[in-house]
């Protein structure tokens, strides 16, 4: 924004400023409008003619060029576009067909979520058509802009009795084949720690057919069964999307579960099931999503079928079972005779059921009794409302032991609020829901020992489901479907319960990505791809289409715009399912942690929810936003590099644009690292940073020589030429007096950037205790580094000569404060902290 202005630029501005005549402006405006109209008129007429002539014009696609893909591999693109190049066998394409296939391909490209929308198509008729005879040869140009390849998110969540800090790194297009790598880490009070890494890649350049490998390590408190589960494992899965939009997943899970650190009053059953177990299973899940809006459906249906076989035959492991779950939801709008159109009233019904069938482990035929971490759990504000978390089913003392067979159903009547109206995502709901959760039992109440007994037991248990009423609760509530999560505030009363089941009278708040989710780790992981998460992305295209015009004007020649509009519409229509996968990338983490912790609903909802609302960046395609804000990655990078390399020759124009984003980024990063390494210092960091910056700016601006415009020439003049000048400083000193003055933002920016070494140190501090000799040394070095580079920059920017030491001193003090914070923050021999503490 403050690049040095050349002279003619300046007088342009002057002229612009001088012109203040209202009338003239209006005339101009009018003239412009007329010209635009004229252009459109002409375009319309010419198009009419063109259509008449060429709609069936036979033509061949001679070349396809994709412009703007520095990081995307050629083979990947070829796989997508080669089919275009050979035309159908019997007869050549007509022009309209060409358009369709091309836009279809472009749409496919879009669904990989590595390019920003719109992808502007641009057809060009080859001139040397005659050489090939009658066919008009067409070159296809697609101008794309790659999305930012790396998204780093850090933040903290406070709420629902859990405080946690998380970091999330999404790396798009890793090897140029639209692969994504997604790393998550969170530390919290309830989900003590969760780390997940998932690598996903499309197969054969097909966005609808993907393979994924992932690993997870987490340890989660399970208060409802008073133990903590430590989970380590890996999974690999194939995911594909059928033409009709049904999603399949087929995969393998290998998890090492450890039920440990039981609480004081854990029930004997939980104690008995403490210890290690390995689950090795293959699973398949099928999802058919036909709801108009997964979070607040008013019509359509949803069905999911999940099957998992563990430990049987060649899959070894310690547990062996066949787990099968079905999940359905349907919604019908209820028309009101008076009102025509959509009344907004809808009836939603859902049904879930599952069985856990014991199998013989490996070769031995004797069925193994199920373990607590495999059994089903039922109940909770996002599950069966009116019951506490896992409040249904067998309880021993206060511990929910889970069951082997369950069935749950719910019916909600959703009414729009009187004043708010049907179009707002806010509804009144009246619901009744209930379920049964039963352990596997033979008639004579003993564990089945043979497969026959197991079969009978299963049958009798399933029959048992029907005996007596299920545990039921009913209530009224408010539903708000935020784009990423569904918030419910319900008043509920239990109607039918079993002894020991924990019902809940009165108000109950539920926040969830997905309502009625099964609570167990694997399905928690599944839940990354749970339909509702597409919602925010599914919501986007319509908005993006509006932005097509401006951006495409800039991209290619104006004439192509309307075509893109139409194409954009096309893209939007087919966007919804495609966008599901990036959705998985984000929301995945939250629901993963949630799933592991068995509280997927709340946590998942919250985390993504907050992200959406207050995250450091929005959803996909944030670069445009950042560019609007004036964030210039190029500058940030160059500055960072200058800081990182103390021997770099410091260009005095470096700080000419004083962007604060990089600086801010580093400050926040520092705070976050310190948080991860144990203490929370945000407040102090911000405080010290602000006041320190102000103070330093004052000092330095006092120190810096005041530059008068006249000093330009005689600075270059040999007789007051100082031999010890850095040539850069001396000959540039007067060239523009713009960069000579020290503005506040500029000094803030310098200070912020030179903060980087300390940030790296704090990163080290997460891993290694810094309160040791090693730590002191590293920190000292970092502070020195910061001081060195910052003093260098200040000297260069403010053209202070021979007073670098003087400049360095206050800077050093400034950085030392942060360094000490870093030392105190991380655990270690604690000697320093203790000295100050016990003194």
């Amino acid at each position: 924004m403050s690049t040095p202005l050349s002279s003619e630029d300046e007088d342009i501005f002057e002229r612009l400023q001088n012109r203040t005549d209202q009338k003239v402006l209006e005339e101009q405006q009018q003239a412009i409008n007329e010209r635009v109209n004229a252009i459109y008129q002409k375009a319309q007429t010419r198009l009419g003619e063109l259509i008449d002539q060429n709609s069936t014009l036979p033509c061949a696609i001679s070349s396809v060029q994709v412009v703007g893909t520095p990081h995307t591999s050629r083979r990947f693109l070829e796989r997508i576009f080669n089919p275009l190049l050979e035309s159908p066998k019997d007869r050549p394409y007509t022009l309209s067909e060409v358009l369709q296939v091309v836009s279809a391909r472009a749409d496919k490209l879009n669904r990989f979520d590595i390019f920003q929308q719109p992808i502007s198509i641009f057809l060009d008729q080859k001139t040397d058509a005659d050489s090939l005879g009658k066919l008009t040869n067409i070159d296809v140009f697609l101008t794309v802009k790659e999305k930012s390849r790396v998204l780093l998110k850090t933040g903290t969540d406070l709420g629902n009795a859990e405080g946690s800090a998380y970091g999330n790194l999404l790396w798009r297009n890793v090897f140029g084949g639209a692969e994504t790598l997604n790393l998550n880490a969170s530390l919290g009070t309830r989900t003590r720690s969760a780390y997940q890494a998932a690598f996903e890649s499309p197969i054969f350049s097909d966005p609808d057919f993907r393979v994924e490998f992932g690993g997870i390590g987490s340890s989660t408190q399970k208060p409802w069964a008073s133990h903590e589960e430590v989970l380590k494992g890996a999974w690999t899965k194939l995911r594909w999307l059928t033409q009709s939009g049904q999603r399949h997943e087929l995969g393998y899970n290998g998890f090492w579960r450890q039920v440990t650190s039981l609480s004081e009053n854990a029930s004997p059953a939980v104690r008995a099931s403490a210890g290690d177990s390995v689950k090795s299973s293959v699973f398949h899940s099928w999802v058919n999503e036909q709801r108009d809006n997964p979070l607040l459906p008013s019509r359509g249906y949803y069905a999911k079928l999940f099957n998992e076989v563990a430990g049987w035959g060649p899959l070894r492991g310690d547990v062996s079972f066949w787990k099968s779950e079905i999940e359905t939801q349907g919604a019908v709008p209820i028309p009101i005779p008076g009102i025509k159109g959509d009344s907004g009233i809808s009836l939603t019904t859902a049904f879930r059921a599952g069985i856990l069938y014991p199998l013989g482990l490996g070769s031995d035929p004797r069925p193994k009794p199920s373990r607590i971490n495999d059994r089903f759990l039922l109940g909770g504000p996002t599950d069966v409302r009116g019951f506490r978390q896992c409040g249904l089913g067998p309880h021993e003392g206060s511990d929910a032991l889970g069951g082997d067979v369950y069935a749950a159903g719910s019916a909600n009547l959703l009414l729009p609020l009187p004043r708010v109206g049907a179009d707002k995502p806010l509804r009144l709901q009246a619901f009744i829901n209930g379920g049964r959760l039963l352990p596997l039992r033979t008639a004579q109440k003993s564990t089945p020992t043979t497969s026959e007994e197991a079969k009978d037991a299963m049958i009798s248990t399933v029959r048992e489901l029907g005996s007596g009423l299920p545990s039921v609760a009913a209530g009224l509530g408010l539903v708000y479907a935020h784009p990423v999560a569904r918030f419910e505030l319900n008043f509920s009363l239990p109607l039918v319960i079993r002894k020991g089941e924990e019902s809940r009278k009165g108000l109950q708040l539920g926040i969830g990505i997905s309502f009625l989710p099964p609570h167990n780790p694997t399905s928690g992981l599944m839940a990354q791809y749970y339909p509702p998460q597409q919602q925010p992305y599914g919501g986007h295209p319509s908005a993006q289409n509006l932005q097509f015009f401006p951006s495409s004007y800039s991209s290619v020649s104006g004439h192509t715009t309307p075509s893109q509009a139409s194409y954009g519409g096309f893209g939007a229509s087919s966007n919804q399912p495609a966008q599901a996968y990036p959705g998985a990338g984000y929301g995945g983490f939250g629901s993963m942690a949630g799933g592991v912790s068995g509280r997927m609903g709340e946590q998942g909802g919250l985390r993504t929810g907050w992200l959406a609302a207050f995250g450091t960046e929005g959803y996909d395609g944030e670069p445009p936003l950042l560019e609007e804000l004036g964030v210039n990655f190029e500058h940030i990078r160059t500055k960072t590099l200058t800081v990182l390399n103390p021997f770099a020759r410091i260009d005095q124009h470096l700080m000419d644009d004083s962007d604060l984003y990089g600086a801010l980024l580093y400050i926040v990063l520092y705070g976050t690292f310190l948080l991860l390494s144990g203490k929370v210092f945000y407040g102090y960091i911000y405080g010290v940073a602000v006041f320190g910056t102000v103070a330093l700016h004052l000092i330095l601006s006092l120190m810096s020589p005041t530059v008068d415009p006249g000093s330009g020439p005689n600075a270059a003049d040999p007789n007051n030429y100082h031999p010890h000048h850095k040539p850069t400083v001396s000959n540039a000193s007067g060239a523009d007096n713009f960069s000579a003055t020290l503005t506040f933002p500029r000094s803030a920016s310098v200070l912020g950037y030179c903060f980087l070494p300390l940030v790296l140190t704090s990163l080290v501090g997460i891993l290694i205790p810094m309160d040791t000799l090693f730590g002191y040394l590293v920190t000292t070095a970092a502070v020195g580094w910061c001081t060195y580079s910052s003093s260098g920059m200040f000297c260069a920017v403010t053209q202070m000569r021979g007073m670098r030491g003087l400049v360095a001193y206050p800077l050093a003090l400034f950085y030392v404060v942060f360094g000490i914070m870093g030392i105190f923050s991380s655990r270690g021999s604690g000697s320093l902290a203790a000295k100050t503490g016990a003194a």
Partner: protein
Amino acid sequence: MSTENRDGLGHTAPESPSADERSTSRTARARDLFSVPAPIKRIFDRFPLVVYPANDLPQSRDSEFRGNRLFVFTDAAGSRRGRPSFNPQCLKWQAYLKFVGIEFETVPSTNHASPTGALPFLLPTLPPGTINPIPSTKLQKWAIEQVHCEEEQQLNIRFEVYASLLDHRIRNAWLYALYLDTDNFNAVARKLYVNPTTTNTAVRMVLAAQLQQAARDELLKSCTYIDVNDLEAEAANAFEALSNLLGDHTHFFDRPNPGLFDASVFAYTHLLLDEGMGWKQNRLGRVLRKYENLVQHRERLLKCF
């Protein structure tokens, strides 16, 4: 959130005292705001309309036991026959409870299940419905309350002194012999501690490594490196001292019936002399056999099982 947190020096962020008064008063008001008026409450109490009997519990391995349950390291067969545990600590208390004549069943378990993080622990029958386990540190007290046997530490000053031999000298040697001696570890410890936990080889390897590292750290607490000769020499001395202490009495401290000290000696001597353990290197055992009276002592006590 920044204001809510303090720096490492332990200062609290400056806060006006009035602030928390206000907050407390607000919460108070909120409380009576949310308290349910009586008539509505009466209606609430009607719900739930129907209450069925409780669901029955999923079948777990040990729900048919109904006595005192002592959770120890042992295998299913061993627990059925009440055979001695293969872990010295567990065996010590198992033996002690037997000696003082308390009825109990042993249940195979893991350290994860224990409230202290280490076996053994005991789930008493009485009072009925209790779910609070008794960790090994409180077992003696509990036993004394149950059967009013005397607390032996009080009887002889040498009890604690000679116990320190077992708790340090012999234990350290045992740790080395079982966990750090590779042959023994693969032959004995893997079989007893690692393999039962899971069938998965990878996990087994991890657990084994963890186990050995734990033993190593334990030994390195007292010295900068592990000196096998030292450990074994110390253990040999300890056995010599113990056999001296036992002399030709039937039980330690010449008591009529075996007690805690006998139990804790037996815990090691039995395991070292037990053929069933399948030691590959049993230098400790060889040393131990030199002391005839200790061997006989062990055989006498073994009859109790």
